[in-house]
Structure formats: structure tokens, C-alpha cells
């Protein structure tokens, strides 16, 4: 299918239409609005740690190529600091899209880490422990 979105032409591969619809549903965001300006990646303070920059994640989703981003490290590096969303000229809340990707993994009963094996709980502030459990474990 040929789509004209914001002046750019995308050939949608439709490889994973169902998953993409799921991401749209969970995030409530319109993936097709992204026109690849890169403001999100420019603003992201942890972009240098990601193998897919935030705008690249958007590109993969637009193309319907979901699995690579779903299995990426990038989605777990994002902590939702909202730098991307606050600078997106198209008003896309990319933090919500990252959360949707993590949520799909977590709802498949995936645990990013086992917190009790990783650290001594008493060494860390409670906010970090609770947030880690909520964001990283199923």
C-alpha cells in the first residue's frame, strides 16, 4: 500500500499489522503523524545508549516492522522523561509509544530483570525499586 503521510512516501510492508494496531490502541497515539524530523532523538538524553533512536523506532512502526523494535534494548532505556514528547512538532507522545512497546512485552509475561538478583534492595531508594518493578517486570 502506498501512503502519502506529511509529504513523505512510505511503502507499508504490512508485516505485522495486528501488532501495530495494538501499539496504537495501547498508546492512544497516531504513529502515521511522524514526519521524521528527528526532534525526539535530538532531545532524548539517553539516545546514545539506544541501538534504535526514537525516530528510528517510529520509522520501523510506520513500516510495520515491529519485531526488531519490540526486541530492542532501546525501549527499556527510555524512562519516560518526556523530552521527546515535549518537543515533537506533530504532538506525538513518543513516551507513550515506548510504554506501549514495553507493555506488549510485559503482557507476554516477560521480565526484563529479576530485581532481587540484581541489587541489594536496602541500598536503593524505594521510588527506584517500585518504578523498576512496575516498568520492568510482568
Amino acid at each position, binding site marked *: 500500500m502506498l501512503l502519502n503521510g506529511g509529504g513523505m512516501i512510505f511503502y507499508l510492508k504490512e508485516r505485522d499489522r495486528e501488532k501495530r494496531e495494538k501499539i496504537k490502541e495501547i498508546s492512544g497515539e497516531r504513529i502515521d503523524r511522524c514526519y521524521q524530523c528527528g526532534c525526539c532523538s535530538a532531545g532524548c*538524553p539517553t539516545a546514545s545508549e539506544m541501538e534504535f533512536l526514537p525516530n528510528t523506532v517510529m520509522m520501523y512502526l510506520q513500516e510495520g516492522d515491529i519485531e526488531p523494535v519490540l526486541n530492542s534494548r532501546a525501549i*527499556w532505556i527510555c524512562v*519516560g522523561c518526556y523530552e521527546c514528547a*515535549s518537543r515533537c512538532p506533530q504532538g506525538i*507522545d513518543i513516551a507513550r509509544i515506548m510504554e506501549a512497546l514495553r507493555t506488549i512485552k510485559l503482557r507476554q509475561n516477560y521480565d526484563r530483570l529479576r*530485581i532481587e538478583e540484581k541489587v541489594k534492595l536496602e541500598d536503593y*531508594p524505594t*521510588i527506584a525499586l517500585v518504578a523498576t518493578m512496575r516498568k520492568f517486570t510482568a
Partner: protein
Amino acid sequence: MKLLYYPGCTLKTKAKALEESAIEFARELGIELIEMKEWNCCGTSFNLTTDNFMHQLGPLRNLIRAEKLGAGILTTICSICYSTLWRANDKYKADPSFTHRVNFFMDEEPDYKGTVEVVHFLRLIKDKVGFDRVNELVRFRLDGLKVACFYGCQLLRPRELAIDDIEHPTILEDFVASIGGVPVDFAEKIECCGNYETIAEPQVVANRVYSIISSARKSGAELILTSCPLCHFNIDKSQVLLRETIAGFKPIPIMYFTELALYCIKGEYAESSFAQNLIDPHPSLSRMRTKE
């Protein structure tokens, strides 16, 4: 002035210094912070999915109880509690179907009328007391101490909850100026410190902190000021790691804005406060002089 305040988990454990200094500083300003009864976890990280109903019940239960106590304002001191409670409150007020569902589901609590406003302590001081009053109370001046104000993410984003301008906030700088410090601007002041990645990916946080400290140092900062217990923990702890691994790395001590305010008002502060600091702030504070 009596105000209801929500402490949250970390102010009772790793960030006791923040709670103690905030309560004492408030007392100096003529505000009595009254801890709300029966508070529970704020949720710590706002869930960003559209089907996040269950995640909102924790923060909303706090707001229901605050409303029951007759409070129009619920003060928060921790940035993360502020963000989570504020956003749950906002979602509740903005979405009638969500409102209905919450009240139907939590039938053991009275319906929440949405009369509570979540306000951060710093904003509260600015609006209700004014930094001029803070300035009057200060008896010791910092003698030109250069202070870098680190906001982090939770006080500024998303845009709706920002306690000041989202890209160029000055509220902490104005505060520093009012207690006689010299606020220095630096590029990373509104960036994220790495947040809860401190457990899963400590190196990511260390890299963030390296970037923040380098940026602050270029501006000549001798002290970093924050209001967030997680920023404080990450910046303090990661600097110990960075000092061990990077030759020539010079750490900058970090303090809560409430601690520095008390220091300037009283000229001394309970040593127990700094027991939680890994990077000692004393050398930076040693230049303190009595105000003429």
C-alpha cells in the same frame, strides 16, 4: 498557615534529610506542614498506557483521603510523587467516563469530587510566601557560591504540570538568588538523570551523570541543587563510581534546596542530614559568612 502534605516512601527512608529540612524550612516561613494520615504509595511512575485504570487507583486514593480531610491543596516535596499525583488528578478531572469508573470501582471510599490541587513545595513557597520573605530570613550569605540548579524531568514535563517554564525554568535560580547564592546556567539542567535505570542499567545513569556534572563544571558550579530524591541519589552515587573509574574526575556535591535554605537561615544544620551524602558538601559551604 497550615498545609496538608504528602510525604511518599522515599522521604521516610533514603531521603529523610529532604523531609526533615523541608518541614523545618517551612516552619521558618510560617507554614506548618501536616503529614496526611493513611497515605499510600503514589505509584512512583505514571503509567502511560490508555488502559491504565488500575495504576491510577493508588494515587487517587490519596487524593480522596486528602479531600476527606478538607484540604484544598496537597503539598508534595518529592518530584516523583508530585508528577504521579498531579497526573492522576488531571486524568480524573479531564475524563468523565474514567471518573465514573473510579468511583464505581472504589465503592469503599467516598466519591472524589476533584477539589484537591496537587502543588509542589517549591511552587508553593514562591506563590504563597514569596522568595523576598526567604531573603529576609537569611542570616548567613553564601559569599558568591556558584550553584547549579538541576530540575530533572519530573517537575517540568509534560508541559501541563510544569512548575515553571518547560525549557527555561528559573524558579530554582530565583530561589538561590534569594538566599545569596550565584545561580549558574548550564545546558543539562532540565535533562533526565537516568531515573529508575539506576537499578537495571547503572552505567546508563553514570553516563548521564558524567554529562550533567561536566556541563555544570563548565559553568563553574561548586554545588548542585535539586528537589528530587532520585536525582539526588543518582548524582551522588554515580559520582563515586565516576571518581573511581575516570582519572581526574572532580565530583560536585549535591544538596536539596531545603537543606541549603536552612543552612543559610541557621548557619548550621544537623550533621545527620549530610550523613546521607556520599560527596561531602562541606568544602563548598565553608565559605559561608555572616550577613552584615
